């Protein structure tokens, strides 16, 4: 029977042959609730969600089963001004040193601060070729979906961009993967999100994913794995696809993926950890078949027209509370669902907004460009293209934080750093930085920030601070204008 890309990756990673047989016998292979012991091809780790997992192993005298499938980086708790581990205090230093000690003890390759390959876990992994189509990828971070693979960090879905099944996991699951290289998982539901047609000029991958979350809601994809498709998705570069997959978790999805194609293969070929020679040929033969069958059935199907998407700005305190830059801030009465109405009320209060207000009249005093969503070289270029058109407005603090050492060096080779600095932006060292402020890049009470990150939750960037999620170009435009501005006026 016809299967989805998710079905194919799921079935290929069942450890127990009997499970596969059961799956094949099932009336509908995408049946949810099916349990399986799933083999994990790639495990990415960082300092925040691993110390307790390593301690758990030590308590039971267990070892890491496949250190060679595990790669570590330092990203969340590090300074963006100094390479010193203690730059953000002794507690951060202890956490970073604990990661270094644990990696040393268990034979795991670590890219520490100052290393050529260091970067945000979801930027570093793809750029080294560690994430490949059809893989299962996990990371103790919710944005693992970037990789379109299984990952233990809520942004692990980033890696879905490669047609990998990537999802975020908790620390107990990190420990389970350390010890067994597997995870017990229940099959999720499948959702197809199709974006038809061509993107208008000035509209980016960030606007696509924010528009999708706005349409289906902050919990609209809970219990689902999303497959993104359609002309507008196929036309995206790999970095743009990572931006889309990365925020799958912000719609509640377990993972987000995009079928691999020539864009994927061209990106991967020659990267350090990608297969080479005869292995590359064999891999390509396998990857070429990784797509949903034409008549595959999804539990849910969502369609958007690219032509309808405008530059997006979140107005509320979850990523589903988003509008086009020229739309007025909504009123609670605009929502029919009582819970949405209540959420809108609370959000307007926290964000200090008035229903009907124009975003172009809303002053910002901070701008953050970076994160696992928008910290890649194309993001730096998009922001620089706007930055060179003016100067950061008086009273605005704007920082640019590249996603990895590699991104930083490439940007400097292209002299993007000079453009930013001349325009009045600060050019920092790579890390997660102000996306969540586990270092000293935090906002003050009442600050308002145009941010290229992924979460606008209350207090996310600092207690009492207000976050508006936007694309890199929109963030740069807000920095120059001192308020939100339509980036299409800068093209």
């Amino acid at each position, binding site marked *: 029977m016809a299967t989805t890309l998710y079905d194919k990756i799921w079935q290929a990673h069942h450890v127990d042959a009997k499970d596969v047989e059961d799956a094949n016998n099932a009336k509908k292979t995408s049946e949810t609730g099916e349990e399986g012991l799933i*083999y994990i091809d790639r495990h990415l780790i960082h300092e925040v969600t691993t110390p307790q997992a390593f301690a758990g192993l030590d308590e039971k005298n267990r070892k890491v089963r496949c250190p060679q499938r595990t790669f570590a980086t330092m990203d969340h708790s590090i300074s963006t001004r100094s390479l010193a581990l203690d730059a953000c205090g002794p507690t951060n230093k202890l*956490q970073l040193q604990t990661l270094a000690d644990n990696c040393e003890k268990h034979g795991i390759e670590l890219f520490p601060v100052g290393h050529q390959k260091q970067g945000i876990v979801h930027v570093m992994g793809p750029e080294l070729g560690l994430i490949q189509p059809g893989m299962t990828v996990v990371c103790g971070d919710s944005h693992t979906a970037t990789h379109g693979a299984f990952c233990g960090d809520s942004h692990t879905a980033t890696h879905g961009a490669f047609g990998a099944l990537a999802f975020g996991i908790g620390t107990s699951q990190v420990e389970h993967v350390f010890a067994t290289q597997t995870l017990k998982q*229940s099959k999720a539901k499948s959702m197809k999100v199709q974006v038809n047609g061509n993107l208008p000029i000035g509209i980016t991958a960030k606007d696509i994913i924010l528009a999708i979350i706005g349409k289906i809601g902050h919990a609209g994809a809970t219990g689902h794995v999303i497959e993104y498709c359609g002309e507008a998705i196929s036309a995206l570069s790999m970095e743009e696809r990572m931006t889309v997959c990365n925020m799958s978790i912000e719609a509640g999805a377990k993972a987000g993926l995009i079928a691999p194609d020539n864009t994927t293969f061209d990106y991967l070929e020659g990267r350090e950890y990608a297969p080479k020679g*005869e292995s590359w040929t064999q891999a390509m033969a396998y990857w070429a078949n990784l797509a949903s069958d034409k008549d595959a059935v999804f539990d849910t199907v969502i369609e958007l027209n690219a032509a309808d998407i405008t530059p997006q700005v979140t107005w509320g305190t979850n990523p589903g509370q988003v509008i086009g830059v020229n739309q007025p801030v909504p009123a609670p009465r605009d929502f029919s669902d009582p819970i949405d109405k209540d959420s809108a009320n609370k959000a307007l209060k926290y964000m200090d907004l008035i229903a009907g207000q124009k975003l172009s009249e809303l002053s910002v005093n901070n701008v953050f460009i970076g994160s696992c969503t928008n910290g890649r070289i194309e993001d730096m270029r998009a922001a620089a293209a706007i930055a060179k058109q003016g100067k950061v407005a008086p009273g605005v603090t704007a920082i640019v934080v590249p996603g990895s050492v590699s991104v930083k060096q490439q940007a400097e080779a292209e002299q993007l750093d000079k453009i930013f600095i001349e325009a009045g932006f600060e050019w920092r060292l790579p890390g997660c930085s102000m996306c969540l402020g586990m270092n000293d890049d935090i906002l003050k009470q009442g600050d308002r920030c145009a941010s290229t990150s992924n979460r606008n939750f209350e207090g996310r960037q600092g*207690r009492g601070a207000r976050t508006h999620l936007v694309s890199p170009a929109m963030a740069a435009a807000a920095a120059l204008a001192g308020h939100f501005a339509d980036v299409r006026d800068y093209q």
Partner: protein
Amino acid sequence: MTTTGINIHTGTAMPLNQANVDTDQIIPKQFLTAVTRSGYGKHLFHDWRYLDQHEQVPNPDFVLNKAQHQGASVLLTRENFGCGSSREHAPWSLDDYGFKVVIGTSFADIFYDNCINNQLLPVQLASETMDQLFAVVANDPAAQITVSLQDQTVNVDDLSFTFEIAEQHKTNLIKGLDTIGQTLELDDKITVFENNLPEWQRA
């Protein structure tokens, strides 16, 4: 991890009548630099619970600070509880505070799994049922709520509701099984799987 099992729990409720409570609200980032699993309870709901960042001034309007709800061990909430980050510090902080059960309309996927792995029982009930529970607690904050995992029931006063939970989760919660130990018993099968991988997929 090895833990002791849970089956029946009786306690009073903390009514957190709000949807989309995210992990940044449950436990903010500044407390994630610790390398232990314990000690997070005092920081639970930090931004809402305290008027100052040093946790010296409790916010009298926040439900956790209400006298009538002290000692509660069952958290009542609404839809999409635990959305956001994969931080397991969220269930660690709820557990450390003293919650044994969280009852809500729906939960974010990663948070739900993290609860199961920490013997914190997530119970999902319909929105209308939650309305009834919130009403009972508003009327009588001392109402004793009994949650039976074995029977998959929630009882309070003369009300009784049933809930769904996956068999695997139920078994693990009741028996307090060492899930890693269980999987390690399948070590031979994992090795066979690895040996059957094509050469280019082997690490």
